[in-house]
């Protein structure tokens, strides 16, 4: 157990599936050789097979307190980083003969392969986006599985990291993590995963995937900070819930579940008695707590519509973007990352001269309409 636990809440009702978060993470952390196929942050469409393909059927985690055997996802299940024919397209064109941009070979799966397929059938088709990172679990299956004690949970904030000096590439963590959020690097021969941007956290900066999300749907902060959104969404309002709580790892990433519109009946009329997304499906993803969470959300939405105040809605609207970050709201551009990295965590300035900061698009200010009134 760590002294405090940092956490993320993602409001799925605001996710537009743009994958800006995935790119933010990719450009910051996984550009080295051996990391090409890694996406520490993924966004997939649910229902769907996800990344890696069919990860929810790969085992791992704990059932009834006992470790459940799991599967190590293959490179094909994750999806390789495809090589494209850029040179041919941009430089090799022959007169009258164009080349289309295409990947080499015939890939059969990739990290967002079944985008927007969703589930259900006309007129009641449904889908929602599911962004995922490592859950920095309180009962981390990866950490339990490692025979070399190479996985650590930082005592100050509960971030789960892999010590690559101790890791010998045995990959027991990859079978044990039920969320399949660990990758194997063939170059370094070590396991690698989301680090919750700890060099940024150490400097009071929210993770890149959270800061760069154009939908402002990610909240960051300590779970026990009663002044900040995480505690309010998880503990006070009880609308943010973990993904697959039955996996038994006690995740510290939580989701505000997708609001469920009413279904159409056979005549094309809205049937308020039936939800579009079957309850059973939502329960299979988020556990039974999802129905209570949706009830609370709907009640608070109704209040707000009626002109009454709602703290919950105000938090989720995220009027003031910086308020999403529970104090981790420093602008990374204001930090000298060379200096910052050298103090405590040299990883912040890695051997490629890359910084844990910046490359960020400045956010547009959203004005609270009430402030104008």
């Amino acid at each position, binding site marked *: 157990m760590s002294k405090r636990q940092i956490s993320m809440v993602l409001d799925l009702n605001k996710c537009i599936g743009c994958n800006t978060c995935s790119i933010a993470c990719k450009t910051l952390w996984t550009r080295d050789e051996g990391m090409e196929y890694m996406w520490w942050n993924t966004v997939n469409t649910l229902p769907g097979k996800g990344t890696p393909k069919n990860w929810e059927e790969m085992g*791992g985690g704990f059932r009834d307190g*006992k*470790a*459940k*055997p*799991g599967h*190590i*996802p*293959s*490179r*094909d299940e*994750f999806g390789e980083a495809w090589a494209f024919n850029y040179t041919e397209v941009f430089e090799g064109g022959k007169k009258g003969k164009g080349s289309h941009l295409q990947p080499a070979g015939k890939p059969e799966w990739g990290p967002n392969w079944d985008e927007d397929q969703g589930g259900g059938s006309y007129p009641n088709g449904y889908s929602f986006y599911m962004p995922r990172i490592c859950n920095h679990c309180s009962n981390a*299956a990866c950490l*339990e*599985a*490692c*025979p*070399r*004690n190479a996985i650590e949970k930082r005592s100050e904030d509960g971030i789960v990291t892999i010590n690559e000096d101790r890791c*010998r*590439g*045995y*990959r*027991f963590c*990859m*079978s*044990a993590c039920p969320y399949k959020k660990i*990758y*194997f690097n*063939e170059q370094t*021969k070590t396991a690698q995963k989301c680090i919750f941007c700890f060099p940024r956290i150490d400097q009071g900066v929210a993770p890149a995937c959270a800061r760069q999300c154009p939908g402002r749907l990610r909240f960051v902060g300590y779970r026990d900070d009663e002044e900040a959104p995480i505690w309010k969404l998880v503990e006070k309002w009880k609308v943010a819930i973990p993904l697959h709580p039955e996996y038994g790892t006690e995740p510290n990433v939580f989701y505000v579940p997708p609001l469920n519109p009413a279904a159409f009946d056979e005549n094309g009329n809205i049937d308020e008695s039936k939800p579009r997304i079957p309850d059973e499906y939502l329960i299979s993803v988020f556990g039974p707590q999802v129905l209570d969470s949706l009830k609370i959300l709907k009640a608070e939405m109704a209040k707000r519509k009626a002109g009454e105040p709602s703290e919950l809605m105000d938090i989720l609207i995220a009027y003031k973007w910086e308020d999403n970050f529970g104090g981790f709201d420093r602008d990374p551009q204001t930090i000298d990352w060379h200096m910052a990295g050298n103090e405590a965590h040299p990883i912040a300035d890695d051997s490629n001269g890359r910084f844990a900061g910046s490359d960020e698009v400045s956010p547009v200010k959203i004005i609270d309409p009430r402030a104008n009134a």
Partner: protein
Amino acid sequence: MKAQYIKNVDLKQLRDLKSDFWKKIQPNILPMNPTPVAMQPTQAIRSEWESKPYGLVKEVSLSAAHNGRFVAFRLEWTDPNQDENRHDNSIFSDGAAVMLASVPGAPVTLMGAPGMPVNILYWRADEGEQGRNIVAEGIGTSRTVDQEMVVCTEQWANNTWQVIIARPLKIDTKEGIAQLSSGKEMAYGVVIWNGAGGERAGIKSYAAGGDQLVIGEAG
């Protein structure tokens, strides 16, 4: 068993699978067994492997020789697959190691104990010639102390691995390695990992040397 003293050979010859002197040394055939599931250090490993076969290599042949400066261990075992680096997440390398008690009484079978280190001379197919000099003081504590002192020769042919693991008899270090010299005796063991069977870490075949390893007298 004895690490025989061989006159007038250099390290290159000690490491050569074809050197003549190897033919004159009677190899020790050691039966191997899987390391028990109960000895695996984590719940995840125990629950995954309690019903899966491992310890696929059942027998290893071990010979040893030294030239007064370097010692070489020659291992041979049957393995129908050469598992080096076939690039997928569930593909593991073959590997082998000779374990030596660094101090009298260090429990080789348990990979040492606190204050009683065991020295592991380690080869892994994907790391090739560059072996590892490892020290452990109990299960899960193994630590590479250098990657320079242990050198390996490997060859896979006719469904058989032939591997030589060599190192200086003495190494100037404060680490808890086994310091070797003529006449010295110590407990030893051999470990083989069959990569195709998913073997790595404690999932392996183990042979305890029933006797002591003796470093033969020069002369």
